[in-house]
């Protein structure tokens, strides 16, 4: 009956990095294990998903640019946006990409304490960014439904802020996971790598957003 698994050979075992056995209760059933027997392409999948996510932003940007080009605002609705805080915020976010990168370096060098330190700093920078955003929201001279620019501003920054919030939560989870010994190793750290890829993506989107919304 179990002779049906002759293909569990060496090559497939090599490509199976996941540390704990998946589902102990399914052990011994012939049909389950092979689901896991392929190279880990989760990061690749996340990359494709981020392309999709980026297209959502691209749609928003396109709408915003079209509005700018063809839908003039009422005279009382042309604002000079405060630049200092968003510029500082941009630097904060860029710095957080850098700190995540340092954390990744530390992980690859198997220095977990350093890795966690940089992670925590990254999360802190993310939270700082969100705090800055909140401060800006409460001090802006316009509300969500005031006019087209206001709505677009809040929609874009809000959608991005949602991403930052999610990212910060992911980083904290990864930070917590990194605390248990051997959870991430130099070879096997999908959760960490996913959070990093996502975080860089969110930063990249912000740079475009900042250029379009504040500088243009």
């Amino acid at each position, binding site marked *: 009956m179990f002779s049906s698994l002759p293909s569990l050979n060496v090559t497939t075992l090599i490509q199976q990095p996941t540390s704990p056995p998946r589902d102990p209760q399914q052990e011994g059933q012939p049909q389950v294990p092979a689901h896991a027997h392929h190279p880990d392409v989760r990061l690749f999948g996340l990359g494709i998903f981020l392309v999709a996510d980026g297209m959502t932003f691209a749609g928003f940007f396109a709408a915003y640019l079209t509005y700018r080009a*063809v*839908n*003039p605002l009422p*005279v009382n609705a042309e604002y000079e946006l405060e630049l200092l805080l968003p510029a500082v915020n941009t630097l904060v976010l860029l710095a957080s990409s850098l700190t995540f990168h340092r954390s990744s370096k530390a992980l690859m060098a198997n220095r977990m304490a350093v890795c966690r330190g940089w992670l925590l700093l990254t999360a802190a920078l993310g939270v700082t960014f969100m705090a800055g955003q909140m401060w800006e929201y409460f001090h802006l001279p316009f509300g969500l439904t005031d006019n087209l620019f206001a709505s677009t501003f809040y929609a874009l920054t809000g959608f991005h802020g949602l991403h930052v919030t999610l990212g910060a939560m992911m980083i904290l989870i990864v930070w917590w996971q990194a605390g248990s010994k051997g959870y991430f190793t130099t070879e096997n750290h999908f959760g960490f790598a996913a959070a990093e890829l996502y975080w860089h993506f969110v930063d990249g989107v912000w740079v475009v957003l900042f250029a379009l919304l504040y500088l243009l």
Partner: protein
Amino acid sequence: MPIPASILTLAAGILLALISLWAGQNINLMPVAAADDAGTVDALFKVLFSIGVGLLLGITAMLVVALVHFRRRDGDHLDGPAVEGNLPLEVFWTAVPAIVILILGVYSYDIYAQMGGMADFHHHTSMPPREVEQVSLGHPADPETVIWGGIDRTDGMAFPVEVTAMQFAFIFHYPRQNFTTGELHLPLGQPVELRLKSNDVIHAFWVPEFRLKQDVIPGQPTVLSFTANRQGDYDIVCAELCGPYHGGMRSKVVVEDPRSFEEWLVHNTPATVATAPDSSPIA
């Protein structure tokens, strides 16, 4: 002696071409044409129809021949020939459609430009002195008065009518005479210019006999200019889903000879305009 396949193919091709040409010229699927450019659109349609008939008949014939002639006979368990490609053939059926399509594209662009579809409303220097180009004090013009698009070839010489669409009716306002009706009257043979505005949702102004349609978009006035060239009553149809009574949103356009049109105008022009002492002339 069997007839060579190449001769049969040639004959079939000629027959197909003749049938398509005949079909294009003799099968009329369009309603009567009642505007100047409707005839040109119909001519384009005839070309498209000919090509379409030829292509469809040709492909269907090949399909049917294949199904009949190459059907698997009882007891035949063999494969067909292992033909996987034929470069000259593939180049042929890539290049010919591409060329046909490009020619069609140029042809229809030409017609469309002739209809006035390529008029540039934002930088139109010879634009009629419509309310559009009011003084702009460094600000872009108010979107409510800018013309956003449409079909325009008349260079301001056309007779203007303002069309307002709302759920679920079209209202026609004659700015020069300053009156409003629910039935559009147009002079035969004279260029007219409809300025279309919507009060609520998107509608579309369509007169099938004119072969013209233009969306009426709230916040984005559009224009439609043409010359009606056939007397009669035609339906104006709303072609964009606009709510429950969309299907009932129809109106009538009456194309009449210039004299009776003038009479109709005078008859409908409110007396107040004629007697108002200091009303500045509109348009």
